[in-house]
């Protein structure tokens, strides 16, 4: 479970001005729930995801993941989450098995269970044919499967997906989406970010709309429809953005 409390991130720009990439964000994501962080490019999605995965330090506020505080206990936070983004890469000169083994060891998966876990993963994702081939020789789809396997080798209760389908073809993207559903079935807490409204519409249990670092609205798909009286997610998003801009003006 993820609980985000007043999370903010400030970047100092070249001209000395401060820029709030993420501004006072609060939301929760439960076990077996898919929460989608929805916003246009530059809204602050990646910064939020990076803070939650402890790559970046929050400027203020905090969050707990599986009860571990982001700031106080980053080590345990990382041990309990799997992270996958659209532009994470793999080591071209290692084989799929070597890659997954490396991450298993980094995540302290017991040495005697690594082999079995990789085999299970290969059954699940249909990877047996290329498990011992070097990443360099794999297709995009195969690489994506290795990336997924790498991110869940330690069986984390929380999964964070930062625009995982960006730049993928429909078939490969479909693999990811079905994997996300599998995570939900397994009772994992899933946080997913995207700028594609249709994608959010299809998989979200809860949508958190963010714009210029701030939350526009959050709730289930039905809640958002009810609150705005609109039926199309595009229209709902634009409705909220216009509201904010009117307030600012």
């Amino acid at each position, binding site marked *: 479970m993820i609980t985000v409390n007043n999370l903010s991130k400030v970047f100092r720009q*070249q001209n000395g001005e401060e820029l709030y990439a993420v501004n006072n964000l609060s939301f929760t994501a439960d076990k077996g729930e898919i929460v989608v962080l929805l916003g246009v490019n530059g809204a602050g999605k990646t910064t939020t995801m990076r803070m939650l995965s402890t790559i970046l330090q929050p400027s203020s506020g905090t969050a707990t993941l599986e009860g571990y505080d982001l700031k106080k206990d980053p*080590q345990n936070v990382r041990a309990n989450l799997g992270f996958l983004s659209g532009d994470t890469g793999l080591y071209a*000169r290692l084989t799929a098995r070597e890659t997954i083994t490396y991450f298993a060891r980094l995540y302290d998966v017991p040495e005697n269970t690594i082999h079995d876990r990789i085999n299970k993963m290969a059954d699940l994702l249909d990877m047996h044919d290329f498990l011992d081939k070097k990443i360099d020789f794999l297709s995009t789809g195969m690489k994506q499967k290795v990336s997924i396997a790498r991110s869940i080798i330690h069986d984390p209760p929380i999964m964070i997906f930062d625009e995982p389908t960006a730049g993928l073809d429909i078939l490969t993207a479909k693999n990811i989406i079905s994997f996300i559903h599998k995570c939900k079935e397994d009772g994992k807490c899933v946080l997913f970010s995207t700028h594609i409204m249709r994608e959010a519409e299809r998989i979200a249990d809860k949508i958190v709309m963010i714009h210029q670092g701030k939350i526009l609205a959050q709730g289930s798909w039905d809640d958002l429809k009810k609150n705005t009286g609109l039926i199309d997610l595009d229209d709902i998003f634009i409705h909220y953005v216009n509201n904010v801009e009117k307030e600012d003006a």
Partner: protein
Amino acid sequence: MNIKKIIVIYKKEMLDLLRDKRTIITSFVLPIILYPLLMIGFSSMMSRQEIKLEQQGIVIYLNDIAQNEISREIRGSLSEIETLQIMDEAIVYDEDTYLDLLKDKSIEALITVEDSLSSTGYTILNLTCFYDETSEKSSMAYRKIRDNLRDLEEVLISKRLEKIKINSEILNAVEIKKENIAPPEQMVGFIVGKFLPYLLIILTISGASVIASDLIAGEKERGTLETILVSAAKRNELVIGKYLTIITISIITVLLNLLSMYISFRHIFMQMGQTMGNFQLPIGNFALILLLMIPLITFFSAILLSISTYSRNIKEAQSYQMPLLFGAIMLSMVSFLPGFELNLGFALIPIVNFSLLMRDIMLNNYQLSYLFIVIGSTLVLDVVTVYISIKLFHSEKVLFRTAEEKSLKFWGKDKKDILNLQFVFVYFIIMIIALYYIGGSWQIQDLMRGLVKTEVLLILLPVIVILRFSKTDIKKTLRLNYTNPMNFLLVIIAALPFLLLAGILGQIINLIFPLSETYLENLQSLLSTDQTSIWMIIFVVGILPGICEEVMFRGFILSSLKKNGFWHGIIFTAVLFGVFHLDPFRFLPVSLLGIWLGYLAWKTKSLYVPILAHIMQNSLAILITNYSDKFKFLDFIVKDGNIAYWVIIPAVIIIYFVVKGLHTFNPAETKDNSLEY
């Protein structure tokens, strides 16, 4: 830190790198094949080339103007040289035509023979041999002719002596015999010691730089950095794992280098064994050098890792590595230079110390104390650089550095932002080059006039022009502000203590790096009144630089760097100020003065204060140089040009109170330490 994790990371990096062709080639293959190629290939190619030259015919022209018995004898003697062909004399050209033929390489040498009579009536043959030293063949022709004619001269002399019945042995009054007492081992050490440090350092850094750029910048480029940062490994563990990888591969590189070098040498000496006598290559020295390379490798690895962490991609990392590589090449070449001996000062300079120490080791002539100083000082630097590396890896700003917009909008519409770090840096480099070439040539023509021209035209004028063109508020940028008159009084009080402190710093540097006598004489002559009046010197060396240099450094440069923070701006300006004086021995004292002047400009918000301080410093130095002999009562402070060390205490106390005074008269308006007004 978890050792097991570090090993996991280390193992993976090693596996990854050992599958990389670039690493294999630069770190393993190159050292293995380089030395055999260099030594065996090169030497056999050289001898083959020489044989080839020998076999080719040499054509010379003999212009015999003397036409007497001896000149005919010369012709006869030369024609005995095999492969040498003397051109037919039937065609008689003038000398210029022959020289043209020589230039065209149609002939290899031209000899003119004329005769003259000595005062005692003997005929002397004047023989001139024209040849082209840049042509191998022509040089060889000259050598053959010279050797041949030397023998001939001996024959001719003994004939002359015989005529007057004197034994030719009378000429052998002193016979010089050459006996080289250096054993062959030492001769090898002497030759190898010169280029070994250079080769080892360069090959190690170039190998390590390929690996280092791949290890972090490469991870950024491939998008794998995020995946390891979110893993359960700590950042320290990641850095150390990667650091150990660079070190391991570099050590293997050095080992292969030394091994390959050793085998190649042995091969060559075994071939020459008959002529040089049998001897052992100093294997112990090679082993010691391998051991010595380890601290140097760990030092470089940490620097290269920091560069890799800072860079966004491999290409960027490689471009940042270039200055390091160039610097290392320059410093490691010190072993080639005659007269550079390892001393305490050099033992503390990275690379230079290794270069000189390795040379001494190969000569079997090193001091154990220096060995420990070199290793010790490098280990200290190691700890510092590794610490920086880990710090950088923890910094979000560095790790996720985004593209900066670097455009000099100098001639565009937006003219507000030209005064930044990049611009200042480029400007400074251009200025230094102009100072060195243009200013230098002015000063050679006429020192005083040249100094005035340099200060006004090269230092002051360009700054004014730039500020004018960039439409910057000149008054604001240069801090031409009113200030509390007490500031001037405080600066005057601090002038002498500061000069003494800078002088003591210079004295200490002089202890570590003794200055040459000529250097000191040149400096003295600039400040002394032997040729010019004291007022002239005070104006040219004291007042003018005080104004022009302050406008440039504490005005233009410091204002341009104010965004980079208070101390950063002041220290960077002071370092540039130190470099600007183009004198490595004065770099530290001048930079110290630069920090003081920068502090004054910032604290009083007025350029007039550092201008006065600068003028006071220079003028006092002039006065002390010229009049210290006349004031005998000052001997207890300065005697024979040396400042007493106890002066540090009162000087520091006075400066402390001056700084307190400055704080009282110039209270800080805002809490933050920005350089804004």
